[in-house]
């Protein structure tokens, strides 16, 4: 029993419960922002503490069902960072929607715990529990704007579709258990390496691919994304886009780099097909969007496609490219969604057309959008360029020239639609000329995320080093 392995999860759970208990004892606590500040302070100390935690393959818990390796710790830090940002974004955003802010902040901790469990899981049931904990909390958070019809619709849609995808995933797991008699990753992969291939393995792979593909919003399992992203409170959308997706990817990485490593010839064609579909559909449908959040939803679908190039490359550098890309994707998306949050706070809408004349009303917000969207578009000097360069080069290196060319072509389409958004923001004048009021916490989130986007873009060395070190320790 090595308690330090689960210390972050325990901390997250206790802070979450603490916020709820405080709310029960002091009713005023529930309606004030204090819970949010408590959450942020707690998360910050967790983040700092996480750098002192030991991480290696031997750091395990309960019969090695739970492991704290470098990869898990990296993802946990990513999740905690995302949680800090979204809690800071929520402080002012929530005011018009609910009186019970306290519960909201507590719930983000449970979602965080679910993600962290997914990052550390070395066994399928643990993975599944983490996934469900995350999903259920997200359903609650998505439907948190109780008076808003769209929010409720999003919550319902999310839980129904999640339920189906969980069912599919569980079916895949039961097949795996039936085939191998084991549920832990190492055990299953050792049975597989003995070479007893059954046609059912293919079926299990398809099931797992669809179940996990749902979480990272791969086409054709992406249908929930635009609706849920649109309906959910904006900070939660950001958490879904960044946290939930990254959690999906860590599961994806563990399952496909580790468990099914013998069956690359089986799952690779499937994965490539899905990637091509994701790249095409994500980017092309994004062209037609009029709502910022739906637009960012399709952009996040497209980004899942780019990141999958790293999985397809199936190499150390490919994995390190994924990790690097997830880092910059976090900062760019948080920047963009913080921008949307500021827009919603000030105008009450989130249509792209509402950005018209923004450069006059808030030059600061315009610059944040500029940096974040350019990073998502992959244009230097922002981090997105280095990330795409890393992913595409590695894909070409492993012989997928055509796939990289497709991704590059689709990036050009992406550049077009990101520029169209930026164009709206720079052009025209709005009848409304009142300048924007951006709360300090939100401003800070934007400055940090845009700043990091630039820092990673201009000085990527240290960050690629980290990504490479972690990838090397995993593979």
């Amino acid at each position: 029993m090595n308690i330090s392995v689960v210390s972050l999860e325990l901390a997250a759970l206790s802070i979450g419960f603490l916020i709820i208990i405080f709310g029960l004892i002091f009713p005023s606590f529930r309606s004030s922002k204090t819970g949010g500040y408590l959450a942020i302070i707690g998360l910050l100390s967790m983040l700092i503490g996480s750098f002192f935690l030991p991480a290696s393959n031997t750091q395990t818990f309960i019969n090695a069902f739970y492991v704290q390796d470098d990869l898990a710790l990296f993802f946990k830090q990513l999740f905690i960072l995302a949680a800090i940002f979204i809690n800071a974004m929520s402080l002012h955003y929530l005011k018009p929607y609910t009186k019970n802010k306290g519960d909201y902040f507590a719930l983000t901790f449970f979602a965080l715990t679910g993600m962290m469990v997914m990052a550390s899981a070395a066994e399928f049931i643990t993975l599944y529990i983490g996934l469900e904990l995350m999903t259920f909390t997200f359903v609650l958070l998505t439907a948190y704007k109780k008076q808003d019809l769209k929010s409720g619709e999003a919550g319902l849609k999310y839980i129904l579709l999640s339920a189906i995808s969980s069912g599919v995933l569980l079916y895949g797991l039961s097949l795996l258990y039936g085939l191998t008699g084991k549920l832990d990753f190492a055990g299953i992969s050792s049975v597989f390496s003995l070479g007893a291939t059954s046609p059912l393995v293919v079926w299990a792979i398809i099931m797992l691919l669809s179940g996990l593909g749902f979480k990272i919003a791969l086409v054709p399992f992406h249908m929930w994304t635009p609706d849920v992203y649109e309906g959910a409170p904006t900070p939660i959308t950001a958490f879904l886009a960044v946290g939930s997706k990254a959690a999906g990817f860590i599961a994806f990485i563990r399952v496909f780099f580790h468990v099914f490593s013998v069956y690359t010839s089986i799952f690779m064609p499937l994965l490539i097909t899905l990637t091509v579909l994701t790249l095409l559909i994500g980017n092309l449908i994004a062209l037609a969007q009029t709502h910022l959040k739906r637009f960012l939803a399709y952009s996040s679908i497209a980004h899942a496609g780019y990141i999958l190039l790293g999985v397809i490359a199936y190499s150390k550098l490919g994995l390190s490219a994924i990790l690097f890309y997830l880092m910059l994707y976090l900062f760019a998306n948080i920047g963009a969604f913080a921008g949307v949050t500021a827009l919603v706070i000030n105008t009450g809408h989130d249509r792209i057309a509402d950005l018209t004349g923004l450069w006059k009303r808030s030059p600061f917000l315009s610059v944040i959008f500029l940096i974040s969207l350019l990073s998502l578009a992959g244009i230097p000097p922002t981090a997105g360029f280095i990330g795409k360069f890393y992913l595409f080069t590695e894909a070409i290196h492993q012989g997928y020239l055509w796939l990289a060319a497709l991704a590059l072509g689709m990036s050009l389409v992406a550049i077009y639609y990101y520029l169209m958004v930026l164009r709206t923001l720079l052009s025209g004048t709005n009848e409304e000329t009142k300048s924007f009021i951006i709360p300090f916490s939100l401003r800070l989130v934007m400055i940090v995320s845009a700043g990091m986007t630039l820092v990673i873009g201009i000085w990527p060395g240290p960050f690629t080093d980290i990504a490479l070190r972690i990838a090397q320790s995993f593979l």
Partner: protein
Amino acid sequence: MHLFLLILIPLIGALFLILIPEKHQSLIKWTSAFFGLFGLALSIHIFFVFDKSALGMQFVESIPWIRSFGINFRLGMDGLSLSMVLLTSIIWFTGILVSWDLQERVKEFFIYMFILVAGVFGVFLSLDFLIMFVFLEIAVIPKFVLIHVWGSGKKEYSAIKYTLYLLTGSAFALIAMMMIYLQTMTLDFTQLATLTFSAPFQKIIFILLLIGFGVIIPLWPLHRWTPDGHSSAPTAISMLLAGVIMKLGGYALIRIGIGLFPIGAAFWAPLIAVIAVVNCIYIAFVAMVQKDLKYVVANSSISHMGYVLMGLAAMNTVSLTGAASQMFAHGIMAALFFALVGLIYQRTHTRMIADFGGLAHQMPRAATLFLMTGLASLGLPGFYNFVSEFLIFVGAFKTFPVLATMAILAVVITAIYVLRVVQQIFFGPRNPRWDNLKDISNVEMIPLIILVVVMLGFGIIPAPMTNLIDQGIDPIVQHEVKGSL
């Protein structure tokens, strides 16, 4: 530290500008001018301390950038980059002075302009393809905002057109870059120069680079962004666009295309020569029929870049020196042209040639300067443009006698459209509408005089500049000769 400082000056300047409140407009302008002057002084200082007799890169500075890719942040300078850096700092400084009357969102204008200039310096100084690519985009993106916000006319359309054209071009250069990287696992120019690439590989890379950087030059038929982009941009930005940004393409093509892939370059040289002739002659005809003064100047820029392409195609020391000289000469000339057009537009609020007439009465200074610039653009001896065109054609005659002769014809067409414009605007029947027009003031003359002095000075004594450029071109040609053996 010279080169780092050069890139940092505009960035530090931008940082200072961010800290100055928007309402102190004159403080913002003086700060900008100070940093512009600082940059100019530093590049002149480098010009004097630069050792023109030694071959190769000087002031080389290197720090590891991305260790896992094996890429270093490596800066260095030879005669070619020094001439371009000099050009950039001259146009930067004069561009700030020309923007002195700007009223709208002054602070942001200069911030974006400074970021752009930092990107341009970076492209000219970087010794690594990836770094150069990053700087290239830093130079491209602020322009989108600058045209979009401070431009005139159909600025939204022009801004998006400009950006999409240039980014699509970048995608081609990016593919070439990835292919080179996967082949060699390095993007360092010095290391790449020591390697030899197979002929088919060189051909593929060069055509990708030609498309990628050709959009920036711009070469026909990828030039369509240029007239709109130039015309919609505010004056100082047109100056930078025509004076510097268009040179990024030519510079990168010489440095990477011809410098590292000579066999590929030699293979595609006839194509470049043909396109050069189309650029020179066809676009000159296009310039002839324009009604808008700025469109004339913009098209004349494309036409003049045709000479640069001709110089590139011939690929010998003389012609390449000529091409680089033409980039310098045209940069100064185009900046002067756009500055004058901007000053006239500021007074008359029209750019339609038909609206003018007899302006030489009210604006003798403007008329004189415009005529001088026009004469420079048609290559009159005494201006540096003459020297560079002479070098290009002397060099090009050896390889493409017929095409070079055809390109010379463009000089005649240039004469026609330039003189037509001068005649219709400054001479001809006097239009009473402009009777109370004020001439260019003494203060406004400062940037113009700087540009004229540079243009005439190097025209009369070309040796310092041509020798300087030669220092950079020589190793490239030697490598080319070695590669083709």
